[in-house]
């Protein structure tokens, strides 16, 4: 039995998980500079300790409705894909879970295509399902175009 760490987070009420080894940072996306003419998923670019980070809105990327009025300030998790720094803007971060690979299931076949390609698989937790995201396809330009 092998254990793996996942950072769990919420976007639009749904629980997601990202391999903890891939997450560099958790931060508040502040001081965003919008990028005109970019895709709607791009929230902007920001300065994170001297590095330029491209913030991508997870809600828009997943085709979820925009954040409600009065919702708490969003968070972002710092990811690195192909040498570029990204911040995935999410609603909240829950905790880091150690999960057994044996409880891991491939994604079900009836997911909408926008979701199917960015989901690695699903963990059955006691209360709910944890959807494991693949940061690479989530932030890759080619996949974004296809979405």
């Amino acid at each position, binding site marked *: 039995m092998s254990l793996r760490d996942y950072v769990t987070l919420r976007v639009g009420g749904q629980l997601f998980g990202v391999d903890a080894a891939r997450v560099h940072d958790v931060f508040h996306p502040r001081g965003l500079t919008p990028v005109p003419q970019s895709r709607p998923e791009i929230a902007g670019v920001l300065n994170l300790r001297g590095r330029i980070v491209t913030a991508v809105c997870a809600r828009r990327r997943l085709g979820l409705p925009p954040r409600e009025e009065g919702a708490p300030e969003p968070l972002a998790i710092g990811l690195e894909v192909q040498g*570029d720094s990204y911040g995935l803007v999410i609603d909240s971060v829950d905790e880091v879970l150690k999960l057994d690979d044996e409880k891991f299931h491939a994604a079900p076949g009836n997911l909408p295509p926008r979701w199917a390609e960015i989901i690695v698989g699903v963990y059955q937790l006691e209360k709910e399902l944890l959807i494991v995201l693949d940061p690479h396809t989530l932030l890759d330009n080619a996949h974004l175009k296809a979405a």
Partner: protein
Amino acid sequence: MDDLIAEFLTETGESLEVVDSELVKFEANPTERKTLDNIFRLVHTIKGTCGFLGLPRLEAVAHAGETLLGRFRDGKLEVTPVAVTLVLHSIDRIKVILAGLEATGNEPEGDDRDLIAQLEAMAEGGEVDLTAVQAVQVPDRPIGSDIDPAELNVPALGAIPPESTTPATGLNVGDIDPATGRALRPGEVSEADLEAAFAAADAPDWMNDEPEPVSEVAPEPAVAAKPAESAAAKAPEAMSGLGGPGLGGEETQGITTTQSIRVSVDVLEGLMTLVSEMVLTRNQLLQISRNREDSAFATPLQRLSTLTGELQDSVMKTRMQPIGAAWKKLPRLVRDLSYELGKKIDLVMEGEGTELDRQVLELIRDPLTHMVRNSADHGLESTEERVQLGKPANGTVKLSAFHEGGYIVIRISDNGRGLNTGRIREKIIEKGLASRTEVEGLNDQQIHRYIFAPGFSTAAKVTNLSGRGVGMDVVRTNIEQIGGQIDLTSVSGGGTTFTIKIPLTLAIVSALIVGAGGQKFAVPQTSVLELVRTGQNAEHRIEKINDALVLRLRNKLLPLVQLGPTLQLEAARDEDATFVMVIQVGERRYGLVVNDVLDTEEIVVKPLASILRDVDVFSGATILGDGSVVLILDPNALSERAGNMLEEKASEDAEDAVDTGDTATVAMLLFKAGGGAPKAVELAHITRLEHIEVEKIERMDGRAALQYRGKLMPVLGLNGMHDLMSEGIQPLLVFTGEGYAMALAVDEIVDVVEDRLSIELSPDRSGVRGTAVVAGRACEILDVDYYNVQGLAEHQRKPGAASSERAVA
């Protein structure tokens, strides 16, 4: 790949470049013992190392070459151009094998017997047939460049002798001779002979026991400190110093004290990034400290600030390389050219030590090679011609480099025949680059500049080397791409000089910070020609032609791109345009309308993440002193938005030519109609101007007509019937053609003026011929034929009226 082989490739690649230029020098001066010793030692090292690594093919070629060199050195054989060519051939062959080795990790298949046979024949004083040697295509890149892309020699981090090359592989000359323990091959020298030869040669200074004085640990490579030498013979010496490792002493200055270590470029790039970030952080700190006067941090912060600045300078220096690195291949190139063309050519190089950023260096390497080739091929006369003209028989191509401000200036000059102005003039007309009248109005310098135009080539015959017509425009594009400029001067019979000015580095650029749509953007200053203030009370006003904006600037029309609306920024709607940045991109010139110009700042360019690469209007991003991220605009991509407004290239020269051309002035009627810009029409087309009470115009079924001089004349609006007035007096322009008349309803007749008619912008709809400056205003020129056809159509739809007209006529 085996580490040992990788190391070997890098070092051998460097050695070979040195051998190339040393051989050329040697040929010019066969009595120069030192040079020969150098070459011999280098080739021997190559041979020894590849024997050690088990590369038989390489070893055999190097061996045969070495043997021949050995004969020269013993004075048993005279140095002839044929012999040098043969040695150069073997160097080329070695390069080819190395390239194969680099690609696959193994020696490529092939046979070198053709070459070795000739080398041996020459070494034994026999007949040599150069044609028997198969010519090989030498790969263009320096060998070893893939292994560790462009390793740098970083000056003086420790007292490591430059000859670390050889010991690095664990080899020492003398104990690695692969010949040991087996029979000598034909043409091979015995080890004892070799040792004797080495013993006879003067030991270079670094072999002496005396250690280098401490003061020699200067933070500059020796070559940089060396004064520029002008004598032709000295040039290659200075160059060889640049080769760094592997070179022995020169009589004049002993060993080149290049104390250096190898550092991979990645490490340097990383260091550069760190320092850039540190500078940005420092700027932030300083800004905070400025607002708190009594801060105890002030003094240490000041110190930190100074240190950071110094650190930035030092790290920038590590990226700097002497320009001589881009010139290394040139002596060989000129030598080969000299044989191929049968011309005697001297190559003089000055200021090889002038340093510039390695990124820039890589980008100018090819353009420079092309230009030297051009100068030697086209620029210089043949030797006979020169003698007849009373010029020195040897033509000279001279390269020089020096710093000026934040730029490096490179000159490539020849003392040849100069540009043939008359011929270029003919070519310009023949290629349709400009009309004869335009060309006649240009001075010589302006004519000469046409050689930078795309597709221009005056070479009567296409030679092996140049004259394919894709030369100087590519050079120019390459140089402009890195924010440089190129110009030339030419004296008939006296030669041509090209001057290139390029920025020292691309990593840090000066930028203007502008505001539009409530956001800040950075625009690289190199592409901004001037700033023009516009707005309500300003001298320059933005005018509108249909939906396109133009600015009248010194009697020329400048197409405008509005930054805010182009980027679809919401806030841009209520903004006033206050500044126009005149931007030049290649041949194109346009104005970028912004709301505000805030600052100029030195910015560190960072690439955008790949997810943003399809946004073409931005070339990168940067962090400003206040910590905010701004996007860097790409003037090139924005120019495409202005592009469709321009019918043709709007180069300054071409425009000048139009303006100064002797186009006759014509009388034009200025009027207003259909909204938008004022309109103009040549007075000659108009028969009459009428002011008619609106009631008299009879309207029927979407058409209008007027009983005029006993006939029914159709009345047209500029864009249709709705342009006609509904009450009052309607001004009409009456046009008559053969057997019919037609009236065009306008809002107001403004003036009649005399002016030259030169249409500068192409039309965007029918009924208009284009836009021109008339009496200092941007006007749309009416296409009379278009309305005549419409009027005629009206007549034909009323056959009765038409026939009665004819009867009257």
